[in-house]
């Protein structure tokens, strides 16, 4: 009986305050939903079948942590609004003779009810969206086979534990507040008795420093995969810094502005600066949340859309020819002796006349630590160097030796060099040294620098800075290198002489191209690579543009889709916060604006004060999100390189486009809520 009584009081209280409780409950459920969606996508079996799913799952797992931190800060923020409202009611109960433990019971029920609703509704919505997302994903990747509709119990349990803990913390915080306060304070806590916040310079400075450090981290990370946890550390730092800056930094900023009399005592600034200084402490959290959600959305959408739209481009740069064959031989001698003409003829035959722009050349490629114009072919040296410092990776270079005669033939030139001389082309900065070669072997003198190649290289060949070296006596020179490598035994870096043939098939569709590839492959392997000694032919590999393309789009298409799903969820959350914030502030500001009207403020002045305030409050998070985006850019660029898109200009374009699109959306929300806000503050007085 008694128990039912407190339960009913709790329900009643929530119903009476539904204007506040409803958005609160929706927000809580929304946060639970976001958490669940991210966490369950990370564990989804789809990640095992999807290409690159491992990376995505890892990112999502770290994303879950980010989401958790965000949920904690955000729920505390929304709850603080509620508590301030409810305290008045509790003060009344207290004065009417209810003691604090009775009040605590009501609170317990309230929190319990909110938690239940948030978890059940949040997970239900999460399940729905996540399953829908999975189905769409499968559609996009076309891998419907073997998919069963499973429910991620581990994510549900994680959500229950995590949010159970958060709600418990919220309860403890509210209980402590009730216990520690005097009844009169409770009564007054919502009314005018609020203290003006002091500028907390320490927190503001800490926020600024954290932000700087996080930016530094994000910008200096070179190797995205090995340093991904470092990047997420930076993300967490950015989140904390954003909260500190908005909560403490903004108050400090307003206090500074108030000191500037010429600025402060202007009709436009007077009201908005002072009321912002007053409320930023609490609302800073909301703004920081918006800022972080916006950043997440922007990073996700701009990078995944870059991956998607950069697809054609990137597949082309990975596969510069429709078909590329790489025939590897045991030795440079065998490679040189093999019949290149016959290979070309075989290709022509297999392609039944469709082949166009055939290029064919021999290459001998080595990758190792490059110092003072020479690569060391010692594997151990390289391994030790890389693990001891990730920065050593910067020193890795690839040298590819190609016969000068192939160059002359393909470029239509007639350059003559002496043995021991070479022409050099660099994929990075111009080659700076006078010689080039492999340590402990005779060095080549650089006779000329080439700026253009007569054939196209795949971008995978040039992930590391690559030097192409054209030598007149290819067989002799690479023979030397190969002998040296053999002498190193186990410790030698690997290398193989090979013939590369690339050609386009403009008339053939994807299917035909793959058929031609198979036929060509057969022809080459059947002829043992057109080699005299069958055992000198090692293997024939090929890459087909058509293949890479479909692979690429199935992977990046699903990433793009994932990005869109998560963005929608985040945007909805941001819109909810904005709406929630504007309404709750509107009710608080109502009495202020009615006073100002009585003192002689015109409607227009009120409107302009509202605008200037709402504008600042609104666009500060967007602005900071933009800055975050800029500093995340180098990392994002490295990240999408892993997925095979190297088009920085496209990434900049998608970043800018996404920012503008988001800003546009933001302006819409702004106009909608500013109108609602203005309606509230300028509306007729409520008679009490």
């Amino acid at each position: 009986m008694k128990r039912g009584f407190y339960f009913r009081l709790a329900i009643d209280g929530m119903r009476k305050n539904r204007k506040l409780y409803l958005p609160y409950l929706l927000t809580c459920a929304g946060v639970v939903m976001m958490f669940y969606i991210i966490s369950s996508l990370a564990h989804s079996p789809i990640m095992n079948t999807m290409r690159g799913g491992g990376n995505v799952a890892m990112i999502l797992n770290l994303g879950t942590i980010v989401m958790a931190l965000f949920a904690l800060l955000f729920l505390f923020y929304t709850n603080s609004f509620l508590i301030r409202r409810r305290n008045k009611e509790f003060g009344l109960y207290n004065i009417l003779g209810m003691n604090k433990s009775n009040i605590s019971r009501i609170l317990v029920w309230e929190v319990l009810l909110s938690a239940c609703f948030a978890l059940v509704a949040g997970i239900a919505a999460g399940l729905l969206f996540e399953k829908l997302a999975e189905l769409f994903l499968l559609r996009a990747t076309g891998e419907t086979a073997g998919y069963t509709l499973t429910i991620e119990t581990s994510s549900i349990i994680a959500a229950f534990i995590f949010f159970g803990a958060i709600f418990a913390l919220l309860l403890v915080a509210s209980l402590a507040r009730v216990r520690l306060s005097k009844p009169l304070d409770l009564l007054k806590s919502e009314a005018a008795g609020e203290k003006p916040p002091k500028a907390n310079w320490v927190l503001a400075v800490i926020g600024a420093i954290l932000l700087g450090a996080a930016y530094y981290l994000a910008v200096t990370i070179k190797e995205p995969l090995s340093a991904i946890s470092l990047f997420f550390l930076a993300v967490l730092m950015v989140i904390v810094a954003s909260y500190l800056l908005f909560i403490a930094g903004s108050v400090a900023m307003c206090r500074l502005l108030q000191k500037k009399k010429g600025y402060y005592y202007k009709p436009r600034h007077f009201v908005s600066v002072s009321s912002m200084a007053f409320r930023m402490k609490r609302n800073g959290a909301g703004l920081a949340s918006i800022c972080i959600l916006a950043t997440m959305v922007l990073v996700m959408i701009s990078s995944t859309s870059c991956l998607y739209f950069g697809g054609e481009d990137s597949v082309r740069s990975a596969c510069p020819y429709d078909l590329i064959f790489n025939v590897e031989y045991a030795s440079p001698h065998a490679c040189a002796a093999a019949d290149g003409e016959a290979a070309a003829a075989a290709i022509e035959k297999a392609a039944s006349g469709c082949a166009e722009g055939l290029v064919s050349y021999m290459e001998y490629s080595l990758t190792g630590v490059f110092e003072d114009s020479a690569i060391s072919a010692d594997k151990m040296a390289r391994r030790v160097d890389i693990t001891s410092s990730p920065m050593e990776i910067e020193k890795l270079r690839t040298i590819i030796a190609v016969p000068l005669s192939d160059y002359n033939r393909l470029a239509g030139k007639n350059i003559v060099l002496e043995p021991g001389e070479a022409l050099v082309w660099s994929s990075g900065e111009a080659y700076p040294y006078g010689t080039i070669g492999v340590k402990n072997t005779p060095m080549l003198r650089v006779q000329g620098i080439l700026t253009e190649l007569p054939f196209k290289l795949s971008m995978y060949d040039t992930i590391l800075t690559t030097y192409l070296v054209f030598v007149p006596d290819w067989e002799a020179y690479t023979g030397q290198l190969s002998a040296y490598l053999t002498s190193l035994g186990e410790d030698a870096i690997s290398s193989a002489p090979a013939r590369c043939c690339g050609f386009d098939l403009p008339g053939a569709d994807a299917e035909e191209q793959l058929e031609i590839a198979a036929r060509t492959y057969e022809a080459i392997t059947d002829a043992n690579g057109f080699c005299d000694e069958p055992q000198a032919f090692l293997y024939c590999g090929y890459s087909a543009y058509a293949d890479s393309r479909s692979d690429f789009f199935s992977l990046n298409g699903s990433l793009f889709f994932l990005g869109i799903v998560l963005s929608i969820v985040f945007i909805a959350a941001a819109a909810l916060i904005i709406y929630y914030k504007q309404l709750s502030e509107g009710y608080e500001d109502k009495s202020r604006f009615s006073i100002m009207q009585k003192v002689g403020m015109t409607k227009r002045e009120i409107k302009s004060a509202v605008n200037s305030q709402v504008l600042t409050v609104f666009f500060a998070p967007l602005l900071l999100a933009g800055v975050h985006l800029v500093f995340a850019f180098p990392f994002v660029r490295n990240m999408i390189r892993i997925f095979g898109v190297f088009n920085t200009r496209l990434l900049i374009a998608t970043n800018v486009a996404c920012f503008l699109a988001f800003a546009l959306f933001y302006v819409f929300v702004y106009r909608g809520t500013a109108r609602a806000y203005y309606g509230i503050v300028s509306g007729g007085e409520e008679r009490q």
Partner: protein
Amino acid sequence: MSILEVHDLKKVYTSRFGTQKVEALRRVNFSVERGEYVAVMGESGSGKTTLLNLLAALDKPTSGKVILDGVDTATLPEKNVAAFRRDQLGFVFQDFNLLDTFTLEDNIYLPLVLAGKNYAEMSARLKPLAEELGIAQLLKKYPYEVSGGQKQRAAAARALITEPKLLLADEPTGALDSRATDELLSLFAEVNRRGQTIVMVTHSVKAASHATRVLFIRDGEVYHQLYRGSDTNEQLYQKISDTLTVLATGGDAR
């Protein structure tokens, strides 16, 4: 010439769906001369606040006219009303209506800031006023840090700093203890002595006894008035009490 004339003022409140009508003022007529200190007395619910809101053009009358210094406030376009109120009127409310986000100083500056005055001029005006009102030491404090009487004096300072033609006060002593009430009333008497015209609505006999003239309103009409003449505050207090007694025992002045 009168600074304020009120002709046949009528105010009917209609509920949102037009189902209920409350006639707050029926037919109010009176005028106020420059330098007068007029108290308007009436019971709670008799329409005092309504009257004051109409005088201040915070609300529009159903019919009738309010002429302030020769200007019919109803004819002012909406966008000029606020400026008019700001420049010509000072307002002191029962519940102070100070903004909790401002220090007392900034609260007092508010109308001047809205009028576009610069800081130097504002602070030059505030200094003597704050001394006179005894709040010079409190200017940097926030409303929640000072007492009710101090808040009301700050509110009075805000009303007076624009040097208004007319000071309107709605139950200014309603939320004050008796000492703070005395202080505020003698303050009003003092500014009136220096020429400030005041219209104050109140249901407190004590407050009314400081005025130079007392109007009584009931059932939406002014039905009686008392002049101070050469009476002391005490004598006027007695007269007001007597009038109210006659009223309560059913007497009708007309």
